[in-house]
Every structure is written in structure tokens, then in C-alpha cells.
């Protein structure tokens, strides 16, 4: 099990969902989320392939963050790029990820997205998937669950979060222009976040 393999699965899942994510974004945004993210991960794949075999998890995640930042553009690039950079910093010098570290990494990523995008939970953004996911890992840790079990709970919480985004009004990002008309549509960013978490869980389970 390597970090590079895990990232490739997450990126591959995004690339497979490119059209779906773009359709979601066309309904409430500017219709390029899938296109931009797929382009970003294609570029990231080239960059992580160039890494040395002994690159640690932190180094891989840093490469992913920088790769997304320099290739995605728009708002998703800085947001996801910052998330991966912060997660990278949170697992520096670690060779394995336990549940506690996984939560620290996810929380650092969430903090990065909040710092960059000035959003909070309930505004129909990727945070509506990621914050419940982090909370689920926290609950799992308290119940003595291992990292795989925690990740399973996180994916379920994120999926519930995506469903929740259908019921709320967008107040951040381009979808905010639609206001009430954004109700009924699931958020593309929350969806892509969940896709990546799910791919990660499928890999470690």
C-alpha cells in the first residue's frame, strides 16, 4: 500500500466522474468542475510518477497539492490544492496513518479550505461533506474503531452531507447567484470530495 497508489485511485475516480461533476456544475455553477478537476489530476499523475520511490506520504500529498494548484485554476484549484498542502503538513514524518492522524489531516485540510474560501458548514460547499466526515472519524476514534472503520463511517457521513446540500441554499461560490433556485441540486464540490474519500476507503479496506 502506497500513498501514490491511493492518490491515483482517488484521481482516477474523479476522472471517471468528470462528466457527472460537470453536469452538476452546469446546473448551479459555470459548468467546468469535472473538466478542471480531471485536467488537474492528469497533471498530478505525471508529477507523482516523477517522485522517487522513497517519497513519504507527506511528500506525495504536497506534490498533489502543488500539482492541483498549478493546473486546475478557478476556485477549485486553490481550495483543493490548499487542502492537500495542509494535509501534507499534518502528516509530516509519518510512515503510516492511524485514525487520529487521519482526523488531524482531514481537519487541517478543512481549515485550509475555510481559510481560503471563507466558508462555513451549511453554505452548500465541499465543507458540507468534509466536516461531517471528520466528525464521523472523531466519533469512531472515541468508540475505539480502527482507521479503516473510521474511514467507512466518514464516507457514509460525507454521502449524507452531499444529500444535505440538495436541501440548502448556496451562499458561497458561483452557485450563490441562483439563491433559492440552487435548492434541489447537490453541490459539485461536496460530491467530488466524497468521491475522493470513497476511493480512499475502497483502497484501504
Amino acid at each position, binding site marked *: 500500500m502506497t500513498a501514490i497508489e491511493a492518490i491515483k485511485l482517488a484521481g482516477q475516480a474523479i476522472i471517471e466522474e468528470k462528466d457527472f461533476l460537470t453536469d452538476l456544475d452546469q446546473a448551479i455553477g459555470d459548468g*467546468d468542475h469535472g473538466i478542471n478537476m480531471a485536467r488537474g489530476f492528469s497533471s498530478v499523475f505525471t508529477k507523482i510518477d516523477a517522485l522517487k520511490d522513497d517519497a513519504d506520504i507527506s511528500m506525495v500529498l504536497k506534490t498533489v497539492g*502543488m500539482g492541483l*494548484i*498549478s493546473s486546475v485554476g478557478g476556485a477549485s484549484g486553490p481550495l483543493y490544492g490548499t487542502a492537500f498542502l495542509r494535509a501534507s503538513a499534518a502528516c509530516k514524518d509519518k510512515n503510516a496513518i492511524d485514525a487520529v492522524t487521519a482526523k488531524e489531516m482531514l481537519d487541517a485540510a478543512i481549515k485550509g479550505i475555510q481559510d*481560503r*474560501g471563507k466558508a462555513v458548514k451549511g453554505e452548500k460547499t465541499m465543507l458540507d461533506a468534509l466536516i461531517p466526515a471528520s466528525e464521523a472519524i472523531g466519533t469512531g476514534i472515541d468508540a475505539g474503531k480502527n482507521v479503516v472503520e473510521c474511514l467507512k463511517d466518514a464516507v457514509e457521513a460525507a454521502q449524507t452531507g452531499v444529500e444535505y446540500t440538495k436541501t440548502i441554499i448556496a451562499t458561497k461560490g458561483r452557485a450563490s447567484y441562483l439563491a433559492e433556485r440552487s435548492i434541489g441540486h447537490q453541490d459539485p464540490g461536496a460530491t467530488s470530495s466524497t468521491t475522493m474519500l470513497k476511493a480512499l476507503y475502497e483502497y484501504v479496506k
Partner: protein
Amino acid sequence: MKKIINNPDNVVEEMLNGMVASHPEYLERLEGFDVVTRKNKKSDKVTLVSGGGSGHEPAHGGFVGKGMLDAAVAGAVFTSPTPDQVYEAIKAVDNGKGVLLVIKNYSGDVMNFDMAAEMAEADGIKVEKVVTNDDVAVENSTWTIGRRGIAGTILVHKIAGAKAEAGASLEDVKAVAEKVIANSRSMGMALSPCTVPAAGKPSFTLADDEMEIGMGIHGEPGTHRESITTADEITQQLLDKIFAEDIYHSGDEVAVLINGLGATPLMELYVVSGKVQTVLQEKGIKIAKTYVGNYMTSLEMAGCSISLLKLDAELKELLAAPADTPALVQF
């Protein structure tokens, strides 16, 4: 889609090459990046970096030169440039006096420029930022939180550029840029849509007899659509929205920018400008300087925007200062 292009994927690259090849006395290409920098850099001044999505030419590369910008960063059409591109532009022009980033208020632009600023600051470069938001059409839009930055941005380039050229400190250049932002407002309208080359089809449609008031420079929605009317009535409607801001009063002195969106002839822009002169005169507002032309376009969109900037002695003097760039020459 009918365009004079070779390949939609190469439009920005070929445009930048053409721009630099056409204006070698003004511009240089930063090798390997979508950045144009000022030729004959002055080493003892604060430098200005701006940019954004492509498709708004001559903004921003056309305003690189003496008295305005030191570098412009070009993103994909209507898409913010990435932080690494902006970061390279900052590094290329910094000479130790500090760099001011002039950013139009769109979520993507603000985030990408913010990240570039952090990367440069980590290198020990002094960076300050201003965000332009002159468009009074909508408070929040498809692409922004808060007002959008449109043609009024050119007045920020002009005045902050003149301040930097005069040797002012980074703090003072930033302060004057913020003064321009606080005192400038714009309002636009569109008659026909534009087509992003990679998309291949127009982003919206307007009926033959329809216009959209408050249309953004990426085709994002404005306040409403209505049947097209006379130039005088359109101008009055745009000005009324600007006057509702309660900035411009009898006795004030202003600069006026009548901006074409790409497909509107100068003839029509001058008809609009004539009406603006009359309306301002009737309100007792004096016009110190009027710019008419295509400054911040939206590909081949037809339409225009009107920008007003309230002047004080400092702004008036800086506005009148020389500028020598591909798209704006003033002696």
C-alpha cells in the same frame, strides 16, 4: 463558432506571442509562463502586477509599460491564472521596493492571487493586494461574492501606475489604488453574447430586440433583460444606477471611461459618451478626462460600460501623468 483562430487550445499562447512580437518596444514574454513584462524595467520603483482570465484584451497585457503595469498574467479564456504563474510574474518584476497586485473581484482570481502573494512573501518579497469592485450591477454574481471588478480596473492601473512611477512607497501606491477603488463605479449592458473558443457555443442568448442590463464581462447575468431602446435612454439608465451609489454630486470633478465590450463600434461608444457629457453637465459634475474605446473587452460581445471616477487633486494629477503602453499612450 466563427473565429480567426488556429486551434482553441492554443489561443492564449498564440495571442501572447503575437502581442510581444507586435510590441517589442514595450513588452517581453517571461520565458515558459503566460506572463508579459515591461521592457526597460525601472529598478527603483514599486512594481504593479495584474492579470486575470484572457478574453478581455487589451486588458491586461496591453497596459504593461511606463506609468501603468510592470507585468500582466494571462489565464485561460475567462479563467483565473494559477498561483504559480502569478508568483513567477511577481518574482520577475520585484526589485526590492515591493509589488502591488491589482485583482478583479472574482472568487477564483482572489484565491489564486492570494496564494501567489503568500508564496512570494515566503521568499521575503513585499507584496500588497487591492481588489477592484467597480461594477454596481449586482451585489453577488455567478462568479463573485460582492461587486465584480470590470473596466474601472483600468483607472486603478493608470493612477496607481503613475504613483509608482513617481517613486512612491508600496504603502502609498496601495493607498492611492484603494482611493481609486472607493471612488470608481461602473455599469454595463450587452446586446449580444460571446463564445469562449474552447466551449464553441455562446454562453447565453439574447433575442434580436433584447438587451441585458448589468451583464458581466464573462457573460454572467446582470439585473434584467428588456427591449432595446435608444442610446440616450440606455445611457441614462446606466448612469442612474451609478448615481444611486451616492458618490457623485454637483460640484464634483470626475474621469469618465466609456468602454466597449469588443463588438461595439466606436461610433456607438461616442454616441453614448456624448450623452454622458450632457447628463453630467446638467448635474453640475465637471469632467476632467474622458476615455473612449475598448479597454476591458469580453471577446466579441456587443455592448458597453460606463465608469465614473471621482477625482481629488492627487487623483487628477496622477490621471494626467504620462503613460506609454501598447493600449494607452498619454503625454
